[in-house]
């Protein structure tokens, strides 16, 4: 146990589930309200928070649907509170209407998606098939959400704290995109006090608190007048998104100098890939890993740099989806490497690749080098 010098609070090594780590981080980060509806494999988060938020005298409400939950998030955020919701794929689809409104109104909030197999009811196993949904906006209109993709419990905990700060800093929804494996995983991590990302966050002078002593505040997404209102609004959003693209691109590179093959994977898949890569490295093969930690903004410049540094390298994109992140890789690398150097290994059944499967896939590519 170590004590944090600034807060006097202790850092504890703890063992819990990914879905619970996210909930505890939210409380530590000052989340006042949490609204959600049960769905596998994320239900431990509402179960955990129903107890913890009561203990801490915070606001927990099990909504009647995901549609209601996200609109409660909208209301709480408009009222100036730090607020979070969590769900899994079909529930996130239902939340998309609300997310579009939250993005349009430029309200901060944190949304956790513990992705499961789809489309439709799919199954309840881990999947990464919501990549398009979260990185492309997902709901109607021209908007983006920041998407953070943890691959371990320490990151679940840390990134959830970051998510609240990023949401407030940029005034927009921030996703924690985990999956059935990360959500259900139990492993130890350091539970430390809240570490703010920024010295100062903008004041919420737009929040709805009753207009005593000031002009009324209006939270809106409708731009009928003047005729260019919506155009201006979308141009301003675009400026903000471009700023984020230049300021916030997180990735991990592992063995990406002098590599013959570089695997590109995120979340749970990146851990599976790493086991296989290490085994190959032990056998003397030069294999690296490029792991995006922000799915939006996508770490474009970083991937280009890796491609330029490793002339003649082959890329292997691995996803628990049928080639969604692959599109970002292709777009990023289209002027840097030829298409035949980008290979793909995907799973669409709501099931994860195994270290042996990835090992064999890499061996096949290595044979032809």
């Amino acid at each position, binding site marked *: 146990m170590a004590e944090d010098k600034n807060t006097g609070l202790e850092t504890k090594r703890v063992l819990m589930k990914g879905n619970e780590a996210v909930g505890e981080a939210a409380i530590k980060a000052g989340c*006042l*309200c949490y*609204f959600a509806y049960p769905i596998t494999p994320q239900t431990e988060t509402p179960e955990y928070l129903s107890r913890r938020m009561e203990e801490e005298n915070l*606001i927990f*409400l099990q*909504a*009647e*649907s995901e*549609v*209601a*939950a996200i*609109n*409660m*998030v*909208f*209301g*709480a955020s*408009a*009222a*100036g*509170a730090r*607020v979070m919701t969590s769900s899994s794929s079909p529930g996130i689809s239902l939340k998309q*209407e*609300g997310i579009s*409104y939250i993005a349009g*109104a430029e309200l901060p909030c944190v949304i956790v998606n513990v992705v499961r197999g789809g489309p439709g009811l799919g199954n309840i196993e881990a999947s990464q098939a919501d990549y398009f949904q979260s990185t492309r906006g997902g709901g109607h209109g021209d908007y983006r959400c920041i998407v953070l993709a943890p691959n371990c419990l320490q990151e679940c905990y840390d990134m959830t704290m970051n998510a609240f700060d990023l949401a407030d800093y940029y005034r927009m929804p921030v996703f924690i995109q985990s999956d059935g494996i990360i959500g259900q995983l139990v492993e130890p991590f350091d539970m430390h006090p809240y570490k703010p990302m920024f010295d100062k966050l903008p004041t919420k002078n737009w929040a*709805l*608190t*009753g*207009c*005593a*002593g000031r002009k*009324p*505040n*209006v*939270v*809106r*997404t*409708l731009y*009928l007048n003047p005729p260019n209102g919506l155009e201006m609004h979308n141009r301003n959003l675009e400026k903000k998104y471009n700023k984020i693209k230049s300021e916030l691109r997180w990735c991990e590179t592992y063995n990406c100098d002098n590599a013959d093959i570089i695997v590109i994977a995120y979340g749970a898949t990146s851990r599976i890939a790493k086991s296989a890569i290490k085994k190959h490295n032990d056998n003397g093969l030069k294999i690296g890993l490029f792991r995006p930690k922000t799915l939006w903004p996508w770490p474009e410049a970083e991937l280009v740099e890796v491609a330029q540094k490793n002339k003649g390298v082959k890329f292997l994109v691995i996803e628990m989806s049928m080639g969604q992140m692959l599109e970002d890789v292709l777009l990023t690398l289209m002027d840097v490497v030829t298409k035949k150097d980008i290979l793909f290994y995907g799973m669409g059944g709501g099931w994860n690749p195994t270290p042996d499967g990835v090992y064999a896939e890499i061996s096949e590519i290595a044979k032809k080098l």
Partner: protein
Amino acid sequence: MNIIKAQPKSITTESTKYCPGCGHGIILRLIGEAIDELGIREKMILTAPVGCAVVLYDYIFCDVVECAHGRAPAVGTAIKRVHPDKFVLIYQGDGDLAAIGMAEIIHAANRGENMSVIFVNNATYGMTGGQMAPTTLIGQKTTTSPSGRTIKGMGKPIRVCELLATLEETKYLERTSINSVRNINKTKAAIRKVFQNQLNGIGFSMVEILSMCPVGWKVSPVEAIQFIEEQMINYFPLGVYKNVE
């Protein structure tokens, strides 16, 4: 000139975009008077619906949030939880409350949220041009029930006060109309009651107001008033459906 009744201070001088003869304008005025009388403008947070009332923030001088279609009760629930000491007003049309947002209003009512709801029932979707609403009367012609609403295949108009009255956590439910001066005055009293209940911490209170939509109904303003008198009130009886002190 003697001014008998001045414009409520909480109402802006913006001219409304409502059609001539529309009920929303009268209701707006009554809300403004109640806000002034109770002195709640500065502690109030208004949820505007999707429908003809969407631009309420142009007319009422208070904090406003514009909600997705039907979702105002969920939005308002959260605002009231964050600011229990503030006054939260939910304003919804019949398409908003009784169709797309039926789940949200039933569950907010069932939880007994301490909120005030103004439900404007004009038996049609005004803003989108007069389509059939859950409250459209049997035989009433709309752009999506051109031969008139039938029970078979379209169901009967939903009586929202009666429906919500079955929920034990609702505290005050009244249906009024604005077809006459007498009924306008009764509506004003109901609005005050619904506001006062929240201030007194009594709980979920709603007034359903039968209102004119001459443009959606494709009749003159005078005929619209007659339609309420002769048809709507028959199916939607006026009165107090619930009053728990």
